[in-house]
């Protein structure tokens, strides 16, 4: 889908699609999804490692869209986990305490690992729960 890149006034860019990064990434996502279904192997794409032209990142995100699931994580700054319009294709954005983007990933998986509760955390929760009980007697 060779959509027009959203070209705002101030960034010097032309309306034709730039390096055409968006198409290859969409293809990569398609292959990853096929692999997930056939071999059950999930894939993570680090958008920060790709030379995106101006507006291409927004272009990609607008094409993928927002699906049914949106999760907010508050750990060392906010992170958002969205399932895109395409089931199995998740967009994960990590930000730090000052809302600066630290990383953007597209994870093609049944269930992004960041959402799972971690065993270590559960152990400390297990330890902490009794205190709660004792407090409420």
């Amino acid at each position, binding site marked *: 889908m060779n959509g027009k890149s959203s070209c705002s006034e101030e960034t010097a860019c032309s309306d034709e699609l730039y390096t055409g990064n968006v198409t290859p990434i969409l293809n990569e996502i398609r292959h990853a999804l096929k692999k997930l279904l056939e071999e059950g192997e999930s894939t993570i794409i*680090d958008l920060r*490692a790709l030379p995106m032209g101006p507006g*291409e990142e927004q272009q990609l995100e607008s094409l993928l869209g927002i699906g049914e699931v949106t999760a907010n994580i508050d*750990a*060392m700054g906010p992170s958002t986990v969205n399932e895109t319009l395409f089931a199995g294709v998740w967009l994960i954005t990590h930000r730090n305490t000052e809302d600066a983007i630290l*990383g953007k990933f597209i994870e093609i998986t049944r269930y992004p690992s*960041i959402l799972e*509760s971690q065993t270590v955390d559960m152990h400390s929760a297990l330890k902490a729960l009794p205190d709660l009980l004792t407090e409420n007697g």
Partner: protein
Amino acid sequence: MADDRTLADILRSQGISRRGFLKFCATTASMMALSPAMVPKIAEALENAKRPSVIWLSFQECTGCTESLTRSHAPTIEKLIFDVISLDHHHTLMAASGHAVDEAMQEAMKENYGKYLLIVDGSIPVGNPAYSTIGGVSNLEMLKDAAKGAAAIVSVGTCAAFGGLPYAKPNPTGAVPVTEIIKDKPIINVPGCPPIPVVITGVLAQFLTFGKLPEMDELGRPMAFFGKNIHDRCYRRPFYERGEFAETFDDEGAKKGWCLFKLGCKGPVTYNACATTKWNEGTSWPVESGHGCLGCSQPNFWDMGGFYNALSTPTIDIAKTAAVGLAAGAAIGVAAGALNRSKKAKAAREHETVTVNDLEKGAKS
């Protein structure tokens, strides 16, 4: 002061959940330009990484690197990195001042002798060491002294790595990069004027996580960030291929975002991560903002023949050299030509009329 707690202990002690730690590992991996699949490996390495002591020495520098790294106006994960490592000495960031600073540094160096990481930014004047001193001690001496006990040295910024601005012609202070003074310690060069913040922390994180030197290129720069040249990763490359170039900064071509080669872009000979990691959290980078790359992570980038002269133009005036060649060629040419003419005339004079009697060798006249 460094203690023996591992990084994971410290994070937990600050109330950060395992999920928070995983997020930290994911973004660190991204910073280190490692593939996301490496996150478990990084998590495991980070968990039991010891908290190294770090000494930061600033010599002939403009504080641009420190500014770029710590971004005092917007502390981010990089700040956290610094909470993790114990930055035992940094002139600008330290609360202490005066003698207390020096004592703290000596203390840290003695205690972690052989284990601490020495970060240097700024070049070192050897022309006359008095040009740049801290507390009466010349940068040269201070560097040599601090380097003795360092596990490794990271030269942050082109000044420390290659000499940078002070080193540019005519180099009044006789400035030299770290590599010309310290020969016996592993040195990681993180050039850039300034280097991309995430590249600095990426290198530190990599050293922190894997505890050994990253793979480096011929100029001692980590391949992770300096392995590819800008031109190869530049999003304007298709215009270079089609030969569509901006002729001036405000012509049609520039507005259409065409290639800036003709406006002096040094992308093809510059190795850095600007084209992918970009600056200010991926907002943009010089070329995307319409200005050619200056080649700031390369040695001698100040003397690369002018920021606005195309890479294919010479750094000397060929018109002048051609004129010199022409003058010399004409002068010697006229002389050689005159010599030829006289030699030819002499031969013609010495010609003896050939008659049928002397057509055979040894024929009697």
